[in-house]
């Protein structure tokens, strides 16, 4: 699959010189910000994400029930003024459960995204810059992990992680979530390596690690930020899928995945058990990916071919 390298990586410095003469020397950061501001998708995403986070933090306050409370008088009730999202067969308040599950899923997503991006950045930069056997070895590992669907690996490794706390899941997801981005970073680094400012540093005698730290990583940072953002949604998707099939978060911990699993059997007859948590889940992931996509468009309007 080394053909991925041949996907053109747009050079951010290149532009159409005749038409897009920047009006005044605006910094890249400001330019990105102004492009972001004019993207409706960004606003939809950031407001959605902000609402979800605030709701996860404060959503329990107006609710009369806690996630562990059992309302034995209202078992299997449909949404009412008392139980906004209804209750389960044993009287758990679905609203409270959704918020608790959302918290866990959000924490996992928000930690895994950046963590995977950091791994991708370091591994990709080393492979792309150092080259040679390092590069070959890293590319092989990446290719291998791409051939084995990571979902299967998660399931395979789940017996180990089940016995540990849910925090271990964060490292598991990050540990298998960096490969595609590492390839992109590697390709970008390879083109950076041929750029004159890195050549200049090399001819000055600057050592490899300093070049990676001082020149390579800052210049791929925008990609990493995008990846971290898009990774949030991806991690939540992986986590809920694993938990849904019983390989992820284990009882008594609750995540959106476990909640959906318990609501599944009644999905057709009592849809609220399933539809409310599912809608929250989709909304969360959608918001995160809209922000990530808008960021990518703003950083590099010609991008988008590198990752989807």
């Amino acid at each position, binding site marked *: 699959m080394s053909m991925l390298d041949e996907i*053109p990586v747009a050079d951010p410095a290149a532009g159409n010189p005749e038409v897009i003469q920047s009006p005044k020397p605006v910094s890249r950061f400001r330019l990105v910000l102004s492009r972001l501001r004019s993207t409706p998708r960004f606003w939809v995403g950031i407001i959605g994400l902000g609402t979800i986070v605030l709701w996860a933090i404060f959503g329990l306050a107006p609710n009369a029930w806690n996630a562990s409370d059992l309302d034995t008088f209202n078992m299997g009730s449909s949404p009412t003024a008392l139980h906004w999202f209804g209750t389960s067969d044993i009287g758990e308040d679905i609203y409270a459960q959704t918020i608790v599950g959302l918290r866990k899923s959000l924490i996992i997503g928000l930690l895994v995204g950046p963590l995977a991006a950091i791994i991708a950045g370091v591994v990709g930069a080393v492979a792309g810059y150092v080259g040679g056997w390092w590069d070959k070895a890293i590319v092989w590992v990446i290719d291998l992990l791409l*051939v084995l*669907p990571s979902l299967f690996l998660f399931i395979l490794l789940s017996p180990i992680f089940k016995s540990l706390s849910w925090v271990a899941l964060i490292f598991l997801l990050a540990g298998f979530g960096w490969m595609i981005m590492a390839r992109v970073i590697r390709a970008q680094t390879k083109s950076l390596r041929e750029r004159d400012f890195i050549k200049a540093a090399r001819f000055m005698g600057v050592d490899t690690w300093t070049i990676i730290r001082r020149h390579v990583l800052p210049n791929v940072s925008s990609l990493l930020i995008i990846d971290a953002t898009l990774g949030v949604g991806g991690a939540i*998707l992986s986590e809920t899928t694993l938990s849904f099939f019983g390989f992820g978060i284990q009882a008594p911990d609750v995540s959106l995945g476990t909640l959906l699993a318990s609501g599944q059997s009644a999905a057709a007859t009592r849809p609220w058990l399933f539809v409310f948590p599912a809608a929250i889940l989709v909304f969360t992931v959608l918001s995160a990916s809209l922000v990530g996509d808008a960021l990518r468009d703003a950083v590099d309007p010609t991008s988008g071919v590198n990752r989807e």
Partner: protein
Amino acid sequence: MIGFIVKRFINYAILSAIATLSAYLLASTILNPAGRYLGRNPRPSDETINSILTGLGVNPHTPVIERLWTWVVNLVTHGSLGDTIHNTTVVSEMTARAGTSLRLLILGTIIAAIVGVAIGVWGAVRQYKFSDQAISYASFTILATPSFVLGILLMILATLLNNVLGVQLINFTGEYTAGLDGGWWVQFWDRAAHLLLPTISLALMGAAGYSRYQRSAMLDVLSADYIRTARSKGRTRGSALVRHGVRVALIPMSTYFAYSFATVLAGAAVTELVFSWHGMGEMLVNAITQSDINAFTGAVLFNAVLILIAGTLSDVVYAALDPRVRV
């Protein structure tokens, strides 16, 4: 060109082989096949368990390298993938299930690719117009939906539809209706009806991804100089985009197809589980839960071969589309 394809094929073949072998090693170290027998009542004796495990070739007392060697030798000499814990051969289990999975995968992938490419092109040409925005938001929403949620939502919708119509129009549990009488025509329709929802589910996921990708590949092409040249020759914008643009924008799609295929496989496995299909995905997941090392490795091999085929196929398409790699 042949050289290029051969090289890529060998590359994929080695990758698939290594993936399978490392799956075997991983499974052997993580899974505990003895655990299944220890919980039985009455608990079989240690010797019994030992002999069962040795018979399966998964006895943890044998060094793992030796077990791997035996497995490889069996595969090469007898074409055997060992036995499952249910005393069937892995190969027979796979032949029984493979058709089910392939039917879903092939149909789903083809529909996804065609629909995805078509709406991707359309979205790019109508960039930022309402239809493009609508398509974009729709694909983002689908991409933000886990495949199990998508499957279940489709089932809920189908139930509603069935209830409204008062007839069981759409069947979605299992692969076919058990005990259905009738000729092969009836059987065919029954299977087709069962195929409907899982295929839609898989195709939707795939099409959403492909359309995003095709759209950005098209956008790269929209501003390309050769589109301008084609227009300067006397083509209208639309005709230049179709004749020159789409043709070039399909090139990156062929590579994307190869590396998105692993994701499609995972999505298909989840879909099978949700719709209670007895396919390869179910076999893989069950193998892990039941600590069946041989069945697991067999399922991984199946996936690896599919990726090998998909990868080579996408390289053939790539070489056919792009004269620059035909050397």
